């Protein structure tokens, strides 16, 4: 799904730029194309321009440069109310002076739909989010999770093909959030709608989406399915941002057979997969996931370079063990191991050797 040719793209951003004040570009050169039915998540730190992108798509902000297309036609000059895009706002934006049923009926009324059709559709939408009994209440009389579901139902009731959601679960507690994550993805796939979803929460992004666009500094840093994003980050920002990650800094000594030999700043040598480095002498930041680090001699790959490490802390977490090590002069290197019967439990003060497969360790930009 990653390489969508422009032919069957449903939503397209082409070289889109946006500036609010004429001085700083909040969105710099955004290119994105989504096929119909995709669930795409925009993930990124605060202020990286996610909401801005969503607002441009919805029509509440205009792009300063570039083209946004929906179903092949440019929508730059179409006002928001004619775009037919459903939207779930971060604070839900349910109209407080209307009942739930009136809220849902609003988009149908402005489309001049007949009364009986309206009522049938509102009922169906309420049932879809399992809120059929709440039509007569006011938004203020609902809990956060219920309001969230109504906001979702309202964005879907007029059957848009594209739905935008801006951190819709931000205000919910963890348990409810997980339940709603499941419900939203389920519903989106069942109805076959295309969804652009914005979140801060990487777990949410990884579990819900077909593809994730990682935003930083007004650019998409990487656009990939969740597994690729986690396992094959394209640069050190993505590696840092998604999941837990150990980084070590050094200089490339040589690259041969697709393996880069990296000399760390304290002299240690490691093997890594060259991603953003091409020749010897370049500075690099290598990244390795805690669960891919091996300290059991028997399971270490043959001929691999190893590093000396000192155990600083052993944290028992039930299903896994987290061990904090001092490696190459840094004492925030973590190792995660599964709690298995034959697993060694390290003790603080112990001196060990660690190693990994060259392809699990990625040499990225410095």
């Amino acid at each position, binding site marked *: 799904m990653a390489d969508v040719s422009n032919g069957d793209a449903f939503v397209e951003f082409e070289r889109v730029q946006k500036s609010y004040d004429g001085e700083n570009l909040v969105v710099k050169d955004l290119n994105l194309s989504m096929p119909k039915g995709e669930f795409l998540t925009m993930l990124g730190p605060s202020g990286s321009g996610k909401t801005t992108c969503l607002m441009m798509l*919805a*029509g*509440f902000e205009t792009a300063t440069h570039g083209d946004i297309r929906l179903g092949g036609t440019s929508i730059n000059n179409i*006002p*928001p*109310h*004619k*775009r*037919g*895009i*459903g*939207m779930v*706002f*971060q*604070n839900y*934006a349910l*109209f*407080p*002076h209307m009942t739930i049923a009136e809220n849902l009926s*609003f*988009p149908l009324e*402005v*489309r001049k739909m007949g009364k009986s059709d309206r009522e049938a559709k509102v009922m169906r939408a309420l049932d879809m989010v399992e809120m059929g009994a709440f039509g007569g209440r006011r938004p203020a009389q609902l809990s956060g999770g219920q309001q969230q579901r109504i906001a979702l139902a*309202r*964005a879907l009731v*007029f059957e848009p093909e594209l739905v935008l959601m801006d951190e819709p679960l931000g205000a919910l507690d963890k348990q409810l959030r997980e339940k709603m994550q499941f419900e939203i993805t389920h519903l989106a796939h069942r109805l076959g709608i295309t969804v652009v979803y914005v979140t801060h929460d990487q777990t949410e992004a990884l579990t819900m989406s077909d593809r994730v666009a990682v935003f930083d500094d007004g650019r998409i840093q990487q656009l990939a399915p969740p597994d690729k994003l986690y396992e094959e980050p394209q640069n050190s920002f993505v590696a840092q941002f998604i999941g837990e990650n150990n980084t070590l800094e050094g200089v490339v000594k040589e690259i041969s057979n697709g393996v880069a030999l990296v000399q760390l700043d304290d002299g240690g040598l490691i093997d890594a997969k060259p991603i953003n480095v091409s020749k010897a002498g370049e500075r690099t930041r290598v990244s390795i996931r805690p669960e891919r680090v091996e300290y059991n001699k028997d399971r270490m790959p043959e001929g691999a370079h190893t590093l000396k490490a000192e155990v600083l802390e052993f944290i028992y977490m039930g299903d896994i063990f987290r061990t904090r090590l001092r490696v190459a002069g840094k004492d925030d290197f973590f190792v995660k191991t599964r709690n298995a019967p034959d697993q060694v439990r390290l003790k603080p003060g112990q001196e060990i050797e660690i190693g990994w497969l060259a392809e699990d360790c990625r040499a990225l930009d410095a």
Partner: protein
Amino acid sequence: MSDTTQSGPVLAADGTPLKRSLARALRMQKIRALMLVAPLLLFVLITFILPIGDMLFRSVENQIVSDTLPRTVVALREWDANSGEAPDEAVYAALAEDLKIAAAAKLHTRVGSRLNYEKPGISSMFRKAGRKVKKWDVENGGPFKEQFIAIHEGWGDPDAWRTIQTYSPNFTNGYFLNAADLQKGAEGAEWRPEDEQIYWVLFKRTMFMSMVITISCIILAYPVAWILANLPARSANMLMILVLLPFWTSLLVRTSAWKVMLQQQGVINETLVWLGLVADESRLVMINNQFGTIVAMTHILLPFMILPMYSVMQTIQPTYLRAAKSLGATNWTAFWRVYFPQSVPGIGAGSILVFILSIGYYITPELVGGTKGVFISNRIAFHISSSLNWGLAAALGAILLAVVLVLYWAYDKIVGIDNVKLG
């Protein structure tokens, strides 16, 4: 731990029943709270409750007649006002006795003026009689009937005596009747003659003009409040200063400024004549009439409309409008169906404020209202400071108070007072 299965009241740690020790603890709290608000309560009592109570009392109080003429009042009880004849000698004798005492204390003119409100002409009867009675011998000087009639023929008029009899009780509804353009006739209350009816017209005018002022304020304030609420903070503060600026200039100055603007030789007329839109001899009359009052008062009361509207609109998040548009509403529909209903509490609060302020307004109508643009409050002021008929002024004020309360009640029934937000 205490035994929770025991019967009888739950006991506190020291053995007293829990209920009582709780009540004691709460009572201390209540007393402390009461002491904190005591100065405020006292202030409100002295400056607000007592004056209003006094006003309501004055509007029905009428002790002056029975206090000054006690014997006459008793003697007059027997007299039948519908007999068509003046009372007999006993009443005149009592009057002579009362008047002599009253004239010595210089109180007779006061009764005269009090009764003069009800029947013009009585005041001179008392003045003249008082002067003469001082020299009479009230014990043996009788009979007095002819002597009184010789002083002023009004003393022989049964109508004058009817007025004295009608107003001899300690309390009267006469002021209220008067305030409603009614009078006490032979068969109870009746309308005053057509040409003496002034208050009813004034009340109607006050209501009507206050309504017009309120509506003008709504129309002018709504866009201003909207802009204020939607501007970035810094520009909004700047604009807010402009809105509040009128508060920092004297009311008198602002009203006089409207005189300068609106009078026939004023800025607007001069400009219109200069532009050739209005002929020199037919300059517009915009001051000393209702138009002038409405313009000046709308200007003066505008901030009272803008501020509550602004504070309500500030709480309406712009995402509501965006949500409406994303659901397919045009700009107008989004405004009318989503924004406007949420701003109604602000309009309600502003309207109540402006309406209530304007029905009691005094200075501006006085200065720019002429005769056609004065309010009921100008009449009240007249009775307080010029005619000194405080009872009537109090009755008019009480009616105004009742009208405000009724309107407030009606507003609560229709819109709901909970829907009013002042901030």
